[in-house]
């Protein structure tokens, strides 16, 4: 490739002239922190890292890289769980300095933001208007909205309010070749290229500005914690609730291993540590009729075998219950040094059967599966804590994960509900999609990025793209 000849120092100097020398990192020791995101165990060394401080600087950086055909990877807060922000010898473009909330239109219920704005910061800013940004990934205190859009992030409250896709109205995007485009939903005609862009994992370009939908805060919220003596009973309660047509704002399941990790942490929420599983159920909406919904939830839980259904007495108690759930992934660090995190989705009628199978797959391989997930969506997060330095244990963990994923695909499910494919789930793509479908995905990517320089080696295995077969892999490219 042409880029190989360009010394890092002279590129750094040119990028430094755009963003300020302080905001370009080239030394190996300063790039260490940018070698990984929140997917444990993966490290890739970026060629250099650059941090634009304005939309214009971001565009200028992308154009400079386009001039030499250099591959790049966009990164927000590095909280992704699929390795999507790993840059293998590519230029890493961090957008965390682009954190202006440009406007909040309370009347239209929209916000216009830069991609580095932290999810929770937007909700905090919108609170003054009685509004909030609905998608609430567990990492919302840290993750950026640009990253949320790239991954089509979900979160507990997406059960009722929808995922990121349903909350993005417009995006200004700099394409990998430096062209600026405005993408919308096609409400006034035109292809829904915004829909294609959301969830494209940084492969289609970088959003420079986003217009997002804000949601009115509900008049009332009731949060309940139902306590079960078996995971199957909790799963059964979930399936019955969905089948009964109740749409809670959120419906989350945590099993005993997860409950214990949380209860040992600073986010201890008062979950019963002897329960085999708990369901965290929230109903919200107009005050009128909310009590009836909450009662229906309680009855279904009890009928499915819940020992107790408690209600959060006030906002503080509610917040505590939620903090425990949202920090559960981090709390797993207490169990073992490393962690495999999965994100499969299965039909909701099959939850109990799937969880049962997952448990027996875990037993067969002698690994401990901890479940904490968005039960209402059927979005499983089987996590396996382990020690990566133990080769035998690592092999067993990865074998178990593979079987779990295969089982979920066979049940008519998918491999990722909100974390993205990234690097981590590439091996499952060919099992999930036909060759034609993967080839069509490649076609879509190439309309945005013909040279495939944006986040190379992610999402779709390179060899799935017929037109790319036979071409030499890019530097930083994938497995082929």
């Amino acid at each position, binding site marked *: 490739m042409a880029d190989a000849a360009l010394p890092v120092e002279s590129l750094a100097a040119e990028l430094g002239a755009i963003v300020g020398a302080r905001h370009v990192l080239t030394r190996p020791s300063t790039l260490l922190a940018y070698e990984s*995101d929140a997917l444990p165990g993966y490290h890739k060394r970026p060629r250099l890292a650059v941090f634009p401080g304005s939309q214009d600087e971001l565009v200028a950086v992308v154009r400079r890289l386009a001039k030499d055909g250099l591959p790049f990877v966009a990164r927000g807060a590095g909280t992704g769980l699929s390795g999507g922000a790993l840059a293998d010898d590519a230029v890493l473009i961090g957008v965390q300095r682009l954190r202006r909330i440009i406007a909040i239109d309370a009347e239209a219920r929209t916000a216009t933001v830069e991609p580095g704005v932290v999810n929770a910061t937007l909700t905090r800013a919108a609170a003054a208007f009685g509004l909030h940004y609905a998608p609430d990934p567990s990492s919302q205190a840290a993750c950026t909205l640009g990253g949320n859009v790239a991954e089509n992030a979900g979160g507990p409250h997406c059960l009722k309010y929808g995922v990121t896709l349903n909350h993005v109205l417009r995006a200004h995007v700099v394409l990998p070749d430096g062209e600026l485009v405005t993408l919308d939903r096609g409400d006034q005609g035109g292809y829904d290229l915004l829909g294609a862009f959301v969830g494209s994992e940084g492969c289609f370009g970088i959003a420079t500005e986003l217009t997002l939908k804000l949601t009115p805060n509900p008049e009332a919220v009731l949060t309940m914690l139902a306590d079960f003596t078996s995971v199957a009973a909790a799963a059964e309660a979930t399936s019955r609730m969905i089948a009964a047509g109740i749409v809670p704002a959120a419906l989350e399941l945590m099993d005993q291993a997860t409950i214990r990790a949380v209860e040992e942490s600073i986010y201890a929420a008062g979950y019963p540590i002897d329960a085999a599983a708990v369901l965290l159920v929230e109903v919200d909406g107009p005050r009128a009729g909310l009590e009836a919904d909450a009662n229906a939830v309680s009855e279904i839980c009890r009928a499915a075998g819940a020992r107790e259904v408690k209600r959060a007495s006030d906002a503080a108690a509610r917040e505590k219950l939620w903090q425990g759930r949202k920090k559960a992934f*981090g709390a797993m660090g207490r169990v073992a040094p490393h962690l495999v995190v999965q994100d499969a989705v299965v039909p909701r009628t099959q939850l109990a059967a799937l969880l049962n199978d997952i448990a027996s797959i875990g037993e067969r391989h002698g690994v401990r599966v901890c479940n904490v997930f968005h039960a209402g969506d059927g979005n499983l997060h089987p996590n396996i804590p382990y020690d990566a330095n133990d080769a035998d244990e690592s092999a067993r963990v990865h074998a178990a994960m593979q079987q779990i994923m295969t089982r979920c695909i066979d049940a008519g499910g998918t491999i990722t509900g909100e974390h993205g494919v990234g690097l981590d789930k590439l091996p499952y793509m060919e099992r999930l999609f036909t060759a034609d479908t993967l080839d069509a995905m490649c076609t879509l990517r190439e309309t945005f990025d013909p040279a495939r320089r944006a986040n190379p080696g992610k999402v779709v295995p390179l060899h799935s793209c017929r037109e790319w077969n036979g071409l030499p892999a890019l530097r930083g490219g994938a497995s082929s």
Partner: protein
Amino acid sequence: MNTEEMRSGLDACVHCGFCLPACPTYLALDDENDSPRGRLVLMRALLDGQVAPDDPDVAKHLDQCLGCRGCETACPSGVPYGRLLEGTRERQRAQAPLPFVARLVLAVFAREWLLRPALAVARIARGLGLARLATRVAPHALRMPAAMLATTARKAVAEYSPRGDGSRGRTALLTGCVMEGLLPALNRASERVLAENDFQIVEAKGQVCCGALHAHAGDTGTARDLARRNIAAFEASGAEFVAMNSAGCGAMCREYGQLLAQDPAWAARAAAFSAKVRDVSELLAVAGPKPTTPDATHPTLVAWDAPCHLQHAQRVVDPPLQLLRAIGDVRLVPLVDSAQCCGSAGIYGLVQPEVASRVLAPKLARIHESGARVVATANPGCLMQIGSGLLLEGSTVQARHPVELLDAAYARARQTD
């Protein structure tokens, strides 16, 4: 910390990134190398020999850590960040000495015979108005320290005789180096409000600097020496409680047990000492504290800034608020990001003045947004950092210790009796 402990502490990090928004230097500098997650990566690299021990970038980013430990109360997996940082700094010190300014300051603080005269000179300069003058005319780099000094000036307060009955137990105050040197009025106020609330005040003669500054800088040897002298002094006083009005000292004294855990002669004594440590607000919260009558006509709007070493290190959250609520003419107003570091952090302001002021900027902005006339905080470093920031801005908002406010309220109540 031995290598094994370091490694297991580092292993607890799952790289989730929840610490990023809790880190004042990450928010001020926008570089993950200046975040807890990034610094943990650097600590591990140092430990594994992946980077050279004298790598200037690694040193820079670790030195830029305030040690506020705001990340610890954000971390779901319980990474002992503060201890890992001290462990790393201790190892770094073995490789490369601290900058000259830092070494000088630490040396003075470890020696009473140097510290007392130094602080006396500072008091004289302050008394002559030189400090306040220097905030306007001194070279830029000196204005902040001058303002810090100027902000410790206090008008004489009306004294009163506490009426408590001493029934709550023998209590000795850690008078501290900076506190006794520059803010002695605050120590007297602490003693009076404790006495008013039925604590029996005894003196712990021979006490010295708590050693926090030394421990944070990686000079654990000196910190241990100072700890032993303090433990002996307080044992001799017969106190049941060791009262703290400085959050930084309180956090350090609570950790004497860990600091001397490997010293067979002192481990048990240190643990017993640490168990007696209480923030003044905690003692007062247990006592009530005695409220003063509200002055409905002239309420003072007060915002509470939670010092890192109280909130994150000692996990003392509610007692200071209880104390402030007991003051009749105080109306508490919420301070956004109250628990976020102001950038003070011991001698940080002297070694990293630029970062310190970048970290301070959002704190000052939040204080102004709150509409408060007084910002209450419970650590000398924070009082001086925030106070100097306000002074340099020309703001009339004052930084005060909650105990000072309570003491003044008791004094006023006594006058109207």
